[in-house]
């Protein structure tokens, strides 16, 4: 593996990428570097012919192959604006990976270095990254253009994602996250992250000490005069998911804010957003302890040669897993001795009261569509199932209106419908849900979005997550409660009075957020995620 130790301040990301032939498409091949403990690791030079030949013996479904010193991913190219597969692939050539290089065993070094950073230094680091990204905005736009070649998301989603990354990554938001998610006993979280904080509480000596009073000279076992608490950083392994480009950057931010010696596994389908931040880190602060303890890499999920090392007891203190139930279960079973933070696959729902039927159907449908459109239903907060209070006929009326609203979205933000998702819609329509009422939008005969009114049970695992809304009529909104469980992350409710009325009952069934309809996407710094203050899970609360 060839290494690169930083650009030096003022050297822009573009220049280095050009110098090393990185992140630019050449003959359907893109070379993608890794960040391994602050060192930029370059991929070998591999031609299109070599990349194609590496896949030649593999099946059509094979997405990644390993060759000597390299990993090659292939992603189907999606033609725009037609938003369909061109039949070609874009190959991403990445370095090979030595898992032992990723594990940090020098806890003494961490304790004396990274862990001693003050919150202000972390925030200043964030600002430097943000500034660097802004200086390199044109170059980053080029990377987004590269993402566009294979992304299933509409162009406007990707553009907005980049703009949102610029606006939301700043020291003020970062401080709010730290101060709120690590707050304890009325003090802001940054105090605990910076060091030991005295607890103004008289400690009980414990009954052994009381017993010892009669056995040993008095006063020897009094409670310590001062008790202190600290939020101690931990070594984190983040296994991210590719359903949205936000996932890896969010994981990265959490690792940085908690001063972790962290490894972020980038997902197939969304490697570039993470690498974009890795480049910015090396460009902005190559010698910074945070950068020097940060790794952003890819390996094929389940690769035992890598995960066997990373999941060993003691290799990491926390494993954060995003992803499919299978991925989460697999990690939990193979790393039983490492505390795992699971950001489980969940989904959103909507509950629409009968009030919508009195002149507000369009308004409700428009609001509901916002919750549907969050990453085209692939985000864990996006609305997949909507409960409509009314008869089947009324639900069908709502479905027609919602279908028309989705058609507007199809026009404004044309989507790529994955053939597998489109196949699932066909299977539903010509199979188990044949008797349901279907209202679909198509482009050149292919499904683009739709609404299906189902009166019986619906198996959520069959949902294709591609702008298809399942509407279930219920006589009373309360009747929807029986379907709601911990797999529902977010419920958008309409109108507001009904939300307030039902909020506790919905939340008590395991739902993490009960928000006004159309607000499922809303976030703010320090917001609980999956019922957790995640930064709080990414530190060890120590007493001493």
């Amino acid at each position, binding site marked *: 593996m060839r290494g690169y130790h930083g650009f030096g301040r003022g050297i822009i990301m573009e220049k280095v990428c050009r110098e090393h032939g990185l992140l630019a498409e050449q003959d359907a091949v893109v070379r993608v570097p890794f960040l391994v403990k602050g060192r930029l690791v370059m991929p070998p030079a591999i031609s299109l012919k070599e990349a194609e030949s590496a896949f030649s013996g593999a*099946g*059509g479904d094979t997405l990644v192959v390993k060759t000597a010193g390299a990993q090659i991913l292939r992603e189907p190219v999606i033609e725009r604006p037609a938003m369909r597969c061109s039949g070609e692939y874009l190959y991403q050539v990445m370095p090979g990976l030595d898992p032992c290089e990723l594990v940090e065993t020098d806890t003494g070094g961490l304790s004396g270095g990274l862990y001693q950073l003050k919150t202000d230094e972390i925030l200043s680091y964030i600002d430097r990254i943000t500034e660097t990204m802004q200086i390199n905005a044109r170059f980053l736009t080029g990377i987004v253009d590269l993402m566009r070649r294979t992304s299933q998301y509409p162009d406007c989603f990707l553009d907005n994602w980049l703009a949102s990354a610029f606006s939301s990554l700043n020291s003020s938001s970062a401080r709010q996250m730290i101060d709120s998610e690590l707050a304890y006993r009325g003090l802001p979280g940054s105090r605990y992250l910076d060091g030991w904080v005295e607890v103004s509480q008289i400690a009980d000596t414990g009954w052994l000490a009381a017993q010892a009073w009669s056995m040993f000279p008095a006063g020897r076992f009094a409670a310590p005069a001062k008790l202190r608490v600290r939020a101690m950083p931990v070594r984190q392994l983040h296994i991210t998911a590719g359903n949205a480009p936000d996932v890896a950057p969010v994981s990265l931010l959490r690792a940085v804010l908690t001063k972790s010696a962290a490894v972020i596994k980038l997902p197939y389908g969304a490697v570039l957003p993470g690498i974009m931040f890795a480049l910015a880190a090396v460009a902005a602060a190559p010698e910074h302890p945070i950068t020097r303890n940060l790794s952003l890499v890819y390996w094929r999920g389940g690769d035992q040669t890598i995960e066997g090392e990373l999941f060993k007891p003691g290799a990491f203190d926390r494993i954060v897993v995003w992803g499919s139930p299978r991925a989460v279960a697999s990690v939990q079973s193979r790393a039983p001795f490492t505390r795992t933070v699971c950001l489980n696959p969940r989904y959103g729902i909507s509950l629409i009261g009968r009030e919508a039927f009195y002149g507000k159907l369009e308004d409700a449908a428009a609001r509901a569509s916002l919750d549907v459109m969050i990453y085209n239903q692939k985000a864990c907060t996006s609305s997949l199932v909507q409960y409509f209070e009314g008869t089947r006929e009324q639900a069908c009326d709502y479905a027609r209106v919602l279908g028309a609203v989705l058609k507007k979205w199809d026009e404004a933000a044309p989507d790529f419908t994955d*053939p*597998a998702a*489109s*196949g*699932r819609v*066909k*299977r*539903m*329509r*010509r*199979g*188990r*849900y*044949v*008797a349901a009422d*279907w209202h679909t939008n198509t482009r050149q005969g292919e499904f683009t979005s739709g609404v299906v009114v189902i*009166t*019986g*049970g619906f*198996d959520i*695992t*069959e949902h294709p997550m591609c702008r298809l809304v399942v509407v279930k009529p219920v006589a009373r909104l309360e009747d929807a409660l029986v379907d709601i469980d911990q797999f529902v992350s977010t419920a958008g409710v309409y109108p507001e009075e009904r939300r307030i009325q039902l909020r506790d009952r919905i939340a008590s069934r395991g739902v993490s957020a009960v928000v006004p309809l159309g607000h499922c996407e809303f976030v703010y710094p320090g917001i609980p995620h999956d019922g957790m203050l995640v930064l709080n899970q990414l530190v060890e609360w120590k007493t001493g």
Partner: protein
Amino acid sequence: MNRLTETCQKLMSASSKWASGKQEAPGEARDLRRRLIELNHTRYFENIPLYRKIALEQGFGRSASVDAIRQHLMLDAGIFKSYEQGWLDAGDYESMTGWLSEIFSRRINTDPSGIDSIDGWIERLGQDDIHVVYSSGTSGTFSFVPRNRQNWQTARTANIACLAPGILDRLPDGFAGRLFRSAFESKSPREMVEMLGKRGLPGYDAAFLGFRQGRMGNQALMEELSPLFGRAYFLYEIPVSGSGLRALRRGAGTSEERLMAARLRREVVERKTENYIRLIDSIEASTRQGRKILIFGAPFQFNELLEVMREQNRFVPLNRGSLALVGGGWKSFTGEAVSRQSLVETLAGKLGLESERIMEGYSMTEINLLMLRCRHGRFHIPPMIEPVLVDAGLNPIKGEEGEGAFGFMDPLALDYPGFIVSGDRVEMVNGECECGLTGPAVTRIGRIPGSEAKGCGGIMGSVGV
């Protein structure tokens, strides 16, 4: 004899020739099959409401070509579970009957009063000559496939026509082998069925790794096969209850269901070893009397049988000519996969079964034929069936080779829509096989990602979990 029946019989006869390696005019079978498929489309369109709904949505009327059907009218196997689960939960068999009518070729007027279980419902439908079989996946959601009794018999005849050569080939040169080989040369498939019904398989007893009676997957086949043997032993001497099985997967709703589930669990979990030992006793007794045995079950059940034999130190060397028929998937719902090679080696090494007498079948509730795996690892698809390999988008893959979801057009599906895409992902090849058969064949079987595990290897294996 109407046009449909006549064409059906001609196709059966052509299939029978194909099965014995004497396919003189492959185009003839294809033409007959395609004619039947187009006739079936018309029949479905006119008589099956949910099929007509789909056809109309897709812009079709009474007629459609095979290619158009392949492209636009292949249905998902989920259509056989398109009822509302709440009806079964509530014991609403009137609604269930109404739903069954929607996927059946005639209005069902069976009186549902007094029915309180799936088994009772199936029995009552049987009184109206409607033969219902069912299957289930991990979720416990049952697929129900209805057939007219007469067409069920037709399917049996078709199976004999297509399977007999493959099975006869594996019989030793004893009386049974000679008798049936000579009969196959001279008799029609229907006469073969009659002869088998009268004579059975002389010299053979059978050990079925299943329940004495039932309508689910392998179970339904066991019920059909058992009369052909001198003695038929069952691992579980009780009928399998649909309501009991469903209650085990989804929870019991009534005290009767709780009782049925408890009875099943007792038999399959608590008394499992005892039941296997009883079966081994029977196999030993038959073997001592010089009789050959056919053992039929799912791979995991064969493994359980061998495990009990090992624990009891009672491996029984079977008499020469004995057979094993394995079917129902190599993976259980719990995710444990059974190795084919290891099972075949153990059956050969410990029971003395020659590898050529270990047969494997591939089928599903929604299809009328069983496909046997030949010595060269291919599940040959008889000319009775038009295979349709589809991609993830449910679009047909050109040609009859490649990987995809296994779909088929089954001309024998006269009573229910027989243009089906299953949840199985298969690899298919086409052409001549070293075994002498030609045409399309399945060489590898798995499940489509996201599809629940199905098959007898699954549901029965999951009962004890």
